[in-house]
């Protein structure tokens, strides 16, 4: 049987804001966990302007490299129909954040572990925005794990300036910066590497 043709993508549009984001969407780490890291950045367009209506989703392994995931990212209250927030204990591996008026976003999570022995850990990111007709995938690699990063096949195939767009910058202790540029521009900023899966 030949594969079924897929349903085409359409833009998330400007009005997903009351439907998709949920409270504690960016709080992937269990509340108060001592290993919590913060990853923050901005989403920019081809003119270098911030995109205030982008939506990012994060999927990642747990600190032990486990990719099983768990429900409970967007727990709902059957009494009020509202959101309860996460239970503060389980690590679901999933986060969802909308950019703010300055194009900024932030997630607090646990550092992913290697999903196979020797793998460079990363956060997988799916980007949606008004004006973007089909979502984009990228990855946030953390700068520790130098040996694993050097051996990563995706990073290894990229020229240095492209490779740099997939590496989070360590701001200070346990805080990282990762900006996403949907399009390279005249200002000389490098377009983020986006991925296609075969």
């Amino acid at each position: 049987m030949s594969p079924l043709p897929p349903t085409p993508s359409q833009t998330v549009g400007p009005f997903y804001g009351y439907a998709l984001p949920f409270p504690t969407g960016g709080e992937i780490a269990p509340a108060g966990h001592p290993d919590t890291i913060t990853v923050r950045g901005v989403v920019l367009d081809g003119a270098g302007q911030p995109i205030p209506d982008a939506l990012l989703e994060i999927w990642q392994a747990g600190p032990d490299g486990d990719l099983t995931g768990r429900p409970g990212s967007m727990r709902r209250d059957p009494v009020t129909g509202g959101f309860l927030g996460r239970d503060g204990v389980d690590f679901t591996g999933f986060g969802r954040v909308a950019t703010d008026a300055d194009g900024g976003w932030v997630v607090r999570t646990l550092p992913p572990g290697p999903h196979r022995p020797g793998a460079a850990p990363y956060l997988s990111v799916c980007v949606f925005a008004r004006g973007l007709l089909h979502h984009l995938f990228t990855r946030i690699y953390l700068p520790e794990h130098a040996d694993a990063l050097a051996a990563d096949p995706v990073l290894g195939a990229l020229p240095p300036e492209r490779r740099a767009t997939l590496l989070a910058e360590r701001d200070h202790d346990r805080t990282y910066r990762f900006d996403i540029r949907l399009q390279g521009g005249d200002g000389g900023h490098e377009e983020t590497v986006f991925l296609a899966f075969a």
Partner: protein
Amino acid sequence: MSTPPSPPPGSSPALASQAEIDREIAAQYQSYVDSRAAGAPARQHPDRDYPPYRSSALRHPKQPLVSVGDPEDVELSGPVFGVTDVTALDSDLTRQHTGEPLGERLTVTGRVLDRDGRPVRGQLVEVWQANAAGRYAHQRDDHPAPLDPNFTGVGRCLTDDEGRYRFTTIKPGPYPWRNHRNAWRPAHIHFSLFGTAFTQRLVTQMYFPGDPLFPYDPILQSVTDDAARQRLVASYDHDLSVPEWSLGYRWDIVLDGPAATWMEEGRL
């Protein structure tokens, strides 16, 4: 408000006319048809660079996507959702307030499948839409159409063992936007879907059959392949209509991207 608003001062100095947008849509379509005649493969998704949709101009990458295909990629697994993430009322958008929303009551149902035709089970489906007058319950929607205090327009459910989802809602109205002068979106429901792999993620829009606005809408027309575009349009299904209650529409969804077949066991 009984008169149309005048555009705010300083806004978009030179909006294109519908005729200009129509010409651009026709040119994009022709270039796709020509590429097919020259042997190019069918394009299942919109091109991210689609000039008639003005907001795409600065929001699409210019570099080609980098292909990855390691069977151990993190993206071949994905987030999981469960009964704690939805409530029973989430799939009935007409019962989320004390009163009944205005509009034509609908049942929208269908199956979510992967490209091998297997049902996508126990996965999250989220929907959002405008009310019957074409207005979103969103602060930035300044279309001067009435809000409906009995309609928010947000729903979610988990697919069942056959991959089926089902929502009760009202038919959304078409609404104006500022892509060009006299731009109107055909009535649509926004859908967000997860598969068993993050690579199968899909956000899209479902349209209603026979909408006269289809040819004028650069977002729908960004899907330049005729058969692919048709897959975004639900079918009216009289057997799904409930006597003296609601009209039925059927819309099946096929998720693209490699499925996490190796992960599937033990996930539900």
